[in-house]
């Protein structure tokens, strides 16, 4: 069923009896050509592009819980393509372009809102670095603007401009950045994939791989064995766990990242703002809640909850930047498990096991990557060649010395 304004009016006049479920509750078949493990944003997007762009059929997405229950439903929904390095920027700009056409492509309102992202500058050195980054963005076809302190004051007068320790000296702005309704991304991709015959199998945990003579034949799941021609693993924070079942160690540590949302307020924030001195970033959701977060907790974790020191640190950052939020009450906080890679950049590649493909290492920036990641992973699964925008995301780049380290922090996952 296509969604449209007319449809809404028609359903309103006929008692809303015509809406069906957005996707089927599929039961596993014995064999598929493609099995995608993980019904998060990346897995569902992969299935959608495999079916739509690469014309493949007989595809399943297997998800251990419900779709959207992982990080795709836990993140702070920021999208941007403001990277510096060659391996990254074309990929994220491809993602931004796909976001811009996403709702038409999926026939689903994902509330893509390009309200802009402002990265604040607090030192002269930081201005130099951001100017360079802005130039790299422009060279790759993205948009970037450098604002003076006076410009920032005009656009965001509520920021603390009297901070002697961390004065606001300007900002790097990407106007096309913004936020997207995260759940709707999972649901929209699921519905679009389902409409092309993809089986979305929930409550189906992969518990092992059947591998013979270096080739993967299928997956063992909590709902029985499923044979597969090719298997793509896109399980985000669970990458270490799942790939260990195929006998693989990864250049990845799992870490917990927390996020927070306040009570609903009238519109107070024009877009996304990030503090360049402490680690704090904030936006306002369409419901009015301030959505914000900060650093990783910093130690390996598979628990989807963090500890209080980070809460304190995030709130201090918030108060230093925007004293007006001091009286706002916190509504909810939660944690998600990040697959932090050794250089802070992702992996989309074949593995040493024939027929098994890996997509992971997204760290805390994988939401904005969802469309491009799905596209590139579908390309790889369909053609056995890396997509042009994802050529640098090799699994063996740590062995060959081709790291993509935006932060320059070295092989220390909790610093990226």
């Amino acid at each position: 069923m296509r969604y449209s304004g007319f449809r809404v009016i028609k359903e309103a006049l006929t008692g809303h009896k015509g809406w069906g479920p957005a996707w089927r509750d599929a039961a596993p078949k014995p064999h598929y050509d493609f099995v995608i493990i993980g019904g998060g944003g990346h897995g569902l997007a992969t299935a959608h592009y495999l079916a739509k762009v690469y014309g493949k059929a007989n595809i399943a997405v297997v998800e251990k819980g419900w779709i959207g229950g992982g990080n795709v439903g836990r993140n702070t929904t920021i999208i941007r393509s403001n990277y510096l390095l060659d391996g990254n920027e074309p990929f994220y700009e491809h993602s931004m372009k796909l976001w811009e056409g996403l709702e038409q492509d999926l026939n689903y309102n994902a509330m893509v809102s390009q309200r802009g992202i402002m990265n604040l500058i607090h030192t002269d050195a930081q201005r130099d670095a951001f100017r360079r980054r802005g130039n790299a963005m422009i060279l790759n076809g993205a948009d970037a603007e450098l604002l003076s302190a006076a410009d920032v004051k005009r656009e965001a007068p509520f920021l603390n401009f009297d901070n002697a320790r961390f004065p606001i000296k300007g900002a790097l702005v990407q106007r096309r950045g913004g936020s997207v309704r995260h759940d709707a991304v999972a649901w929209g991709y699921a519905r679009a994939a389902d409409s092309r015959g993809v089986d979305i199998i929930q409550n189906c945990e992969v518990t092992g791989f059947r591998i013979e003579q270096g080739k993967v034949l299928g997956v063992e799941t909590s709902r029985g064995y499923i044979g597969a021609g090719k298997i793509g693993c896109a399980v985000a924070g669970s990458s270490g766990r799942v790939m260990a079942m195929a006998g693989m160690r990864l250049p990845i540590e799992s870490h917990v990242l927390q996020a927070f949302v306040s009570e609903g307020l009238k519109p107070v924030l024009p877009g996304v703002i990030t503090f360049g001195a402490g680690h704090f970033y904030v936006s306002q959701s369409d419901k009015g809640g301030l959505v914000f977060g900060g650093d990783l907790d910093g130690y390996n974790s598979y628990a989807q909850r963090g500890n209080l020191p980070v809460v304190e640190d995030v709130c201090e950052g918030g108060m230093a930047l925007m004293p007006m939020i001091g009286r706002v009450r916190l509504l909810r906080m939660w944690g998600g498990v990040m697959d932090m890679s050794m250089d802070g950049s992702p992996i989309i590649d074949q593995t040493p096991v024939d027929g098994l493909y890996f997509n992971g290492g997204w760290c805390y920036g994988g939401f904005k990557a969802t469309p491009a990641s799905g596209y590139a992973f579908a390309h790889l699964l369909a053609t056995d060649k890396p997509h042009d925008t994802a050529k640098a995301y090799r699994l063996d780049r740590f062995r060959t010395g081709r790291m993509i380290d935006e932060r320059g922090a070295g092989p220390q996952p909790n610093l990226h």
Partner: protein
Amino acid sequence: MIINHPLLGPRDSQEFTYLGDASLMHRPDRQGENAGEAFYEYQYQRDNPAGLHRELWYHEQGDRSWLVVTRDTTTHEITDVKLARDVARSEGRST
């Protein structure tokens, strides 16, 4: 989290910085046969277990000792804390 320091007793984990898997104590021999491959495994590849994890914490805002903490990564429960020096010696390192 509270880390029960073997010398100083229970300390807030905020006083520490975290390095990672305790296998990082065992740096490969740089003149060994397969040094390149061994360093690659050592530096970049991780077991990343869900469950008990032996890991290195540095008491930066305390006595500056390195500790080996055994912690469950699914619950954050800490079950064992030792001085890294003692662990290294018991695992055959002299210095």
